[in-house]
């Protein structure tokens, strides 16, 4: 048992190192200079670019960059975003709640509605309701998700106005004066961070 556990742990570690290394290599193989985006809005002098290159370690040999990258990953430091000049971990952390909320809600709806409908159909297998629901579910499943997404946004945000049509938000409850995270709309207040709302 302990041998099996050790083997699995070693495999997991190897997979992790390979994934991290692949991420590093693919980024370096991509065409273009990582600093080029900065010059789009604000042309920079060669000496400034050289300074930035040194700051981000891009002037180092590839092996040294790889070593620094691995060491950073081990410490939980994913480096600094060149475009935003903020730690990547902070940028990820800021977006993680919205991603989890979105993914979690989708999974929750998937499981509850899916299991509920599946159970309902199983108890009426072959019946009229089962046949119709199977058609509807198959049709929905066959729809391109980008199109279905547009239709759902139109129905629930534009027509019914139950949800905001963009951005991560929820209705404030109870109604409160706007806090720093509040997003005022014509229909009330959306909060950029779901419950608890500012109070």
């Amino acid at each position, binding site marked *: 048992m302990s041998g099996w556990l050790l083997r699995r742990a070693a495999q997991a570690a190897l997979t992790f190192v390979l994934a991290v290394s692949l991420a590093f290599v693919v980024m370096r193989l*991509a*065409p*273009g*200079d*990582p600093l*080029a*985006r900065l*010059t*789009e*809005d*604000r*042309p*920079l*002098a060669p*000496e*400034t670019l050289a*300074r930035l290159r040194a700051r981000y370690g891009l002037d180092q040999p590839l092996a040294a960059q790889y070593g620094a990258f691995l060491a950073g990953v081990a410490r939980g430091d994913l480096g600094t975003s060149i*475009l*935003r*000049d*903020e730690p990547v971990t902070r*940028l990820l952390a*800021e*977006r993680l709640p919205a991603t989890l909320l979105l993914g979690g809600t989708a999974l929750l709806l998937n499981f509850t509605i899916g299991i509920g409908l599946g159970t309902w159909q199983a108890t009426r297998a072959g019946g009229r309701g089962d046949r119709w629901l199977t058609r*509807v579910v198959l049709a929905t499943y066959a729809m391109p998700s980008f199109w279905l997404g*547009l239709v759902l*946004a*139109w*129905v*629930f*945000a*534009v027509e*019914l*106005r*139950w949800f*905001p*049509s*963009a*951005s*991560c938000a*929820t*209705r*404030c*409850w109870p*109604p*409160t*004066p*706007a806090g*720093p*995270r*509040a*997003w*005022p*709309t*014509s*229909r*009330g*207040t959306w909060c*950029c961070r779901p419950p608890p709302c500012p109070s």
Partner: protein
Amino acid sequence: MLRPLLRLLAPLALVALPAILPAQTLVIVTGREVLSPVPTLWKNDQSNREISDLLFLRLADLGPALRTTDERAFLPRLARRWTRRDSVTLAFELDPRAHWHDGAPVTPADVILSYRRAADRALSPQLSTLLGRIVAVEAEGERTVVVRFREAYAEQLYDATYQAPPLPAHLLARVPPESLATSAFVRAPVGNGPYRWVGRTPGQRLELRADTTFFLGRPGIQRMVQLVVPDGEARANLLRTGEVDAIDNVYGLPNFRRVERLADYAYYPAPGLILGFAGFNFRDPADTSRAHPLFQDPLVRQALVLALDRAAISKASWGPLTTTPDAPLSAIVGRNVASPPVLAYDTSAARRLLARAGWRDTDGDGVLDKGGRPLRFRLMVPSVSTPRVEMATRMQEAWRRLGIAAELDLVEPGTYMTRRGQGRYDLEFWQPLQDPTPSGLVQSWACAGIGGSNVGHYCNPAVDSLLARGSRAGAAEATRRWSEAVARIAEDVPAVFLYALVYGTAVHRRFTNVTIRPESAWSTVWQWRLRPGQALPRDGQ
């Protein structure tokens, strides 16, 4: 089926109750996030400029006609008046009421700091070129700033005021100049304008709040929220649902004609500073010491332009008001400089020119050739720009009908900028934000710009001479010289000029006293007012 589903989800709507808010609020939606709304840190980005202009005032603003040579039309801002001491000296008297949002007064040191940053070639290569004729900016007493110029010319006041609004010296004196872009100041700028910085949620929104002690008058709108929504369809939905009060460009939206019909919004067309063109590379991308094998021939360049219905191509992507220039003239600059005659869409003429240049389809493969070389090139387009990709596809098809093989090179922005800087392209689809003056043309269309913004290596000494003479002349002669220069550029066809954007800014009708400055849409928001009885829950009643 929809009804039961809606019934199932109906309880979720119970939480949809309005809230009470304390402030009149303007909610704007934009597609591009503002990252550094601080003077001297941005140059070519409209979003940064628009927020920067609410936070930081200039010494004086261009008048409504945006005539950069008309000193009498400038509006006092941080400087309450200015005097001309001689043909090369301007003295600005700062308004004693002007203050930074932390309470410190605006002083000559602020003006000097900003100018020094802009004039430092290592920090701001483009600005330093534009301000090259300012030789000194000095303090005189506690409230006077004296600006000295190398020579007499019509745009002295514009140069002294437009490019580098003052920065707070008392906060930035200890920040190393090269570190400003990465300093805490950029994440929470302290300005002196009608609105003060509140905060930003990266990728989502930023918020400004009115400075109730603003010395030019208390803003009528107390809060401004800018939502960042990159997806055009989602931006359009925000307008349809009334979740936002304003949008910077209706014509940038998909199905803009449907949005245009929304009765709650008033539409304000305004000429813009954005110019779109496909620039020829005059150098061989394989060896930049050689001329480009195709584009060195002016007949080929002219034929490529004549083959395109440029007006139809650009209007399909940018709306009915967009104009098609024949020279590097944005809609704003084009108002003050005479435009040259149009190279009209004429496929027959294009065919004749190509035949004259020796291009024929000798091997019957549908592509013209000459000396065994096919008329084939690559058009580099940033893949993230949907309108440009759409337009490039239409151009490709139009050229194909004439036997011209254009391959689209859709690349991500970092690669685009790298290859652009290295000259590794045949034709590139660029979209710069121009300065409001023709004197700014030297950056991209003069020989001196090669190695900088002039990546295509277009060079005509006659154009350089006319631009230089225009920049040194008085107002009337400057306009004449610039017009001649622009006509020469048009004759040389250094690019396929496609569009000079005219924006359709939409603002909810609940606001009054609305004006839209063409070069900076929201800079007059502080003068807007909410119509009586038009408040929404988000404003607080």
